[in-house]
């Protein structure tokens, strides 16, 4: 696929902006000549039809949730309601400058205030900040809150975070950002955190634990209350990664489980689009212990008037330019308003039903390391399907059948892992088709393995050489190559 830089250039096309309507002054009079650009500027100058064709063609080389089944485990690729797109583009929202006078931003502030309250109640916790703009950003903010909390208590020696070996990579990375070291706790034979190992690891240097509930194996920690109690008794705090909230929306609340920080992934649970990798939003809910340290500004309401509260000396400060990803918050707000309590509950019911249904059928063909009730996702293994066949081969062959592969090679504790999360917005028919495809691939693996090794064949490109991409990375269009 060629890039925009390879399109035939037109001359300066113009037509977007009107002519200057004020008397022009010489640029050299307005700007010091040393500061005027003399460097190359190789942006293509194209007509609008060329731009339209190019990006339309690119879009057809992509696969989104609207194209087909997208069972990426832990990503919750549910359908993105189009109403959300419409409300997020309302000029009153999209056209609002963040430095607008507070009295002229009442609608936006009201939305932020109300969403804060809704998320706080969904979490069952004391307060919420909408500032973090991604799950990892929420994790980082949570770790900053931990640090502030212990600093305030003179317990800065608490420098260790415990996390299970099934943790998502962002967890230890976020802890490290805040200066914590991480200790991995093994999972037991049923895939839950090993209580004994956890107990042994607990001492006065532990700041707390980072857990995903249910965990990345799709298994709900049966001992969650015991775990959080152990951590609190030892003087630590509990961080909950809320990536898997889709599994217990409307059923239970992380606040009741003992969470001190809980992050939402609005682009997962709350249906806002994933955008090819972002933007998302990672608001955090906190317990009483941490509410004072939340980022500024906080959104407040007094006598029906909404405002921004910057006055919070104990705050960790800010983690974003302004108030978080407002237009993402708009989408999530519309979604929650549409669903209501009944709708939220129906989400987790159907998500969990779909996952267990698929698990029950697929375990007949693929190894299922943890065979029991799962929540909204489950992990299979591609090991032993056939000689010389890896999960990667299976994933690439799925592409030929028009399905997006599940998450592969994660969590790290399962060899040749295939993490499948159907979500509630898929029909039984789609699930049956998917199961049939996977069953067919298992047969192909034994009878005609070349089909897998050479997959994908029905994609815009064949299997890509990732080694070459990694070895001498070419990260920008090589303009000079053309001259050769």
């Amino acid at each position, binding site marked *: 696929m*060629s890039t925009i830089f390879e399109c035939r250039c037109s001359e*300066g096309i113009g037509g977007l902006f009107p002519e200057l309507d004020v008397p022009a002054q010489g640029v050299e009079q307005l700007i010091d000549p040393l500061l005027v650009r003399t460097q190359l500027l190789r942006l293509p100058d194209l007509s609008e039809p060329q731009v339209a064709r190019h990006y339309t063609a690119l879009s057809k080389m992509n696969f989104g949730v609207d194209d087909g089944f997208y069972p990426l485990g832990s990503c919750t690729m549910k359908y993105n309601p189009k109403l959300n797109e419409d409300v997020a583009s309302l000029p009153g929202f999209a056209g609002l400058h963040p430095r607008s006078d507070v009295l002229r931003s009442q609608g936006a502030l009201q939305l932020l205030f109300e969403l804060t309250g809704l998320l706080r109640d969904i979490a069952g916790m004391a307060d919420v900040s909408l500032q973090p*703009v991604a799950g990892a950003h929420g994790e980082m903010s949570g770790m900053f809150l931990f640090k502030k909390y212990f600093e305030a208590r003179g317990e800065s020696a608490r420098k260790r975070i415990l996390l299970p070996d099934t943790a998502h990579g962002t967890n230890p990375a976020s802890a490290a950002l805040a200066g914590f070291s991480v200790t991995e706790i093994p999972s037991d034979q049923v895939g839950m955190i090993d209580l004994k190992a956890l107990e042994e690891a607990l001492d006065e240097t532990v700041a707390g634990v980072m857990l995903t509930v249910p965990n990345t194996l799709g298994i709900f920690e049966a001992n969650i209350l015991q775990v959080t109690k152990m951590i609190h008794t030892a003087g630590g705090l509990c961080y909950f990664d809320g990536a898997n909230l889709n599994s217990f929306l409307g059923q239970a609340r992380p606040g009741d489980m003992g969470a001190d920080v809980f992050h939402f992934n609005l682009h997962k649970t709350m249906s806002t689009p994933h955008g090819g990798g972002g933007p998302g939003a990672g608001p955090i809910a906190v317990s009483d212990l941490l509410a004072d340290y939340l980022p500024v500004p906080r959104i407040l309401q007094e006598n029906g008037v909404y405002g921004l509260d910057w006055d919070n000396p104990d705050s960790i400060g800010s983690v974003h330019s302004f108030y978080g990803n407002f237009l993402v918050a708009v989408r999530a707000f519309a979604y929650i308003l549409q669903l209501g309590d009944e709708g939220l509950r129906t989400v987790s019911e159907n998500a969990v039903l779909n996952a267990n249904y698929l698990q029950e059928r697929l375990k007949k063909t693929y190894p299922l390391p943890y065979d029991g009730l799962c929540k909204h996702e489950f992990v299979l293994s591609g090991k032993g399907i056939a000689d010389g066949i890896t999960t990667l081969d299976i994933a690439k062959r799925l592409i030929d059948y028009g399905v997006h592969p599940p998450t592969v090679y994660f969590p790290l504790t399962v060899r040749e892992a295939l993490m499948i999360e159907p979500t509630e917005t898929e029909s039984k028919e789609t699930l049956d088709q998917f199961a049939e495809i996977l069953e067919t691939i298992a047969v192909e693996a034994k009878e005609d393995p070349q089909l897998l090794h050479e997959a994908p064949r029905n994609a815009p490109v064949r299997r890509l050489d990732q080694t070459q991409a990694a070895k001498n990375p070419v990260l920008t269009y090589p303009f000079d190559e053309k001259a050769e």
Partner: protein
Amino acid sequence: MRYIPNTSDDRREMLASIGVSSIEELFADIPSSLRENFQPLGLPMRSEMEVASMLGTMADRNNSTDAVCLLGGGIYDHYVPSIVGHLLSRSEFSTAYTPYQPEISQGTLTAMFEFQTFVCELTRMEIANASMYDGATALAEAVLMAERIRKKGVVAVPLSLFSHLRRVLDTYCWATEIEIHEIPYKEDGTVELTSLPEELSAIVIQTPNAFGVIESLAGLKDRMGEALLIVSCHPLSLGLLQPPGAFGADIVVAEGQSLGLPMGYGGPLLGLFATRREYLRQMPGRVSGRTVDADGNTGYAMAAQTREQHIRRQRATSNICTNSALCALAATIYLASIGSAGLRQVGELNLQKAHYLADGITAIDGYELAFSGTFFNEFVLNIPGDAAVIHDQLVQAGFAVEAPDDLRAVGFENALRLAVTEKRTREELDRLIQVLGGIR
């Protein structure tokens, strides 16, 4: 519920095949006390039409389309070509996720590659990533990166940095225990670099700075010793202004909202991040790299992934996972639509109109530019009178102008900052001058 395709028959069949009699049984693994303590929100289910109406009412309470926007400070009211929104709304782009399976993500990956190229062309740096959350976190991560490379524990930061960038930087530096040394500014508004400490991991310069003044980066890099030069710049000015890469910048960051994004009450935004090729392994964020497929055709895949959290975990260059991909796509389409000619043109429109307004206002008795330094599309005015009162009168007259509080906080008793973009017509500017002239 509208978004759930399963019928009750489907559910019955699925329950039967699992071997349970009710959905309730599928939640038996959640401790019963948690189920009992659950409290609903007290929200009814609502129709799409109702919710559309509710949100419409909220949006109308924002009076944003009435006022003539002169707000700036990193976020600007720019014209976005119609084509951007249309192409961006293609669901193949918006409903896809991170391109972990490159063979079916060539749209995203090719666009990322184009975006990286655009950022490098604008800034004249060697490599760029596929986006950070916003200009503030991009700057914070640049400082963290410089600290990883130089390990001096101190960075120099100008007092003329936007307050929202400084606030985020303060938080990240507190968390990572990096000390901030403040750089004052001269009378003309540019940075005063004569008495910097010897040992620094980096020096941060913002240009144009918080006062709108363009900094001269000429010769700076040579006087910095080992410290890395981090420049936070304004991407839309780079059609007109010499880019930081020409002056030896080591890391360049920016807020990319001006490149085709709505103001959106401050989010989502777009962090640009570019650096030298030799620092690739220290650079945070995703990158798309060119490669070939099994047939030898050109394709794109995520490159240098071993820097990232999903592989390096606690030793990753950053914890960033989800970034601002769709916003980067918007910027890519915007730049493809305006081209180099368009970028120069929009830069000139901003420059000329801002100076026209400044000249018109400073012709009024008592109004002066706070700084003599060259500016692009934003400037600070000293006000003859109570800036808060003048501000309110401008608002009454239908102009959105930033309140003087931020400037007061840094010692400007009576000043206002105004930003002028290509969208401001001569009529609007003349009326503003007239209103100010009429205030006594």
